[in-house]
């Protein structure tokens, strides 16, 4: 997910107009689609084209691709957030291509993406509950089964809410630790508007 997102982001700010247009379009369309509909589509329609996978593979692939598109937007925002002068200065001193990205830009951009990526991870955690729709035996489908046999709906789902909440909190805590570790000294922690727009999306 991270890898695809990164590639997408680099493609989006690329100098080549057609590449930029194409990736922007693909990402826009994917982010505009409803996750659950895509999930059902992959589950019911792909086998018609002879692409038959176990539900787990379908589920992970769909969620992975959709998350990657959101991640690409985060990466793009972070790359754009690096001051233009940094790019120009590097080019002037003869650093280009991969070295430019790896040595100059990414070290500045990466600290910015930690928090939004953490949010995306929590979003992903919450999306996994949708996999119960395509017959994957996750936490949600187990709970439904339990409810069927025992009743006590409010109790079961109330507990489940707390479990997911604790998991989300754990992710958030880890993200804060990482962020703290990588915080750039002497720079405010405020995120560019672009990154905030993606949060919780």
């Amino acid at each position, binding site marked *: 997910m991270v890898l695809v997102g990164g590639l997408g982001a680099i493609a989006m700010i690329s100098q080549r107009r057609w590449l930029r247009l194409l990736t922007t379009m693909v990402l826009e369309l994917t982010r505009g689609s409803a*996750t*659950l509909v895509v999930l059902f589509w992959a589950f019911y329609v792909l086998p018609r084209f002879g692409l038959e996978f176990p539900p787990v593979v379908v589920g992970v692939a769909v969620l992975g691709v959709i998350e990657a598109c959101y991640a690409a937007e985060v990466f793009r925002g972070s790359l754009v957030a690096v001051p233009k002068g940094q790019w120009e200065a590097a080019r002037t001193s003869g650093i280009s291509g991969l070295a430019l990205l790896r040595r100059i830009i990414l070290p500045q951009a990466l600290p910015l993406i930690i928090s939004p990526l953490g949010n995306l991870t929590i979003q992903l955690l919450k999306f996994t509950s949708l996999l119960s*729709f395509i017959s994957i035996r996750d936490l949600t489908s187990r709970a439904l089964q339990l409810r069927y046999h025992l009743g006590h*709906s409010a109790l079961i*789902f109330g507990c489940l809410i707390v479990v997911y909440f604790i998991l989300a909190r754990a992710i958030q805590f880890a993200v804060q630790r990482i962020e703290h570790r990588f915080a750039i000294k002497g720079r405010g922690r405020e995120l560019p508007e672009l990154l905030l727009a993606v949060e919780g999306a």
Partner: protein
Amino acid sequence: MRSSFDWDWAYVQDAMPQLLGGLLVTLRITVLAIGGSFVLGALLATGLSLNKRPLRAALSLWIDLVRGSPLLIQLFFWYYGLPQFGVFLDAELIGVLALSIYCGAYIAMVLKAGIDNLPKGQWEAAEVVGIRGATLWRRVVLPQVIRDTLPSIGNYAVLMFKYSPVLVAITVSEALSAALEVGGRTFRYLEPLTVVGALFVAVSVPVALLIRYAGRKHASAL
């Protein structure tokens, strides 16, 4: 068995009224949920900004619980849980409520940030001219905050639209359920699911672009 790639336009035509009907229900749910979540978000944000510690702690916990768990689980919680307490509501209404509660928590955070960003002078000026209490919130604070946060709130409106298919889990007959029903009748899921997927994209992408455009225009106007 037919060849794998055989898009059947006649079939699409037959299914279209039902699919569009489903989309209409989806849109209705979304619009209602936008209203509901906005009201809820405004109430939560106002509560968070009042200087009452126990109230603030309770509201924060509520918001964190709602934001930390999947919409689907909350949906089940209300759908299966409410009847246990003698509350029987229509599935669609529960869907709207659950969506409102879910996105209301996010909108509350957006509005809260907006309230915190409001210049201090606004509060002081209001105090000087004697505006207090509910009037202060209704006439001074919220109008400005809502104006400033509208683009973010618009994003959540699109989000609600994209999340609404989850309501299929509690038997609401929205767009996705229409597609599944049509597909289940004929064992052909290709067309209905593709069409509904395209409908979702066709609605949400233009709206999202419009919101972003409006947001940018708004930002440059400031």
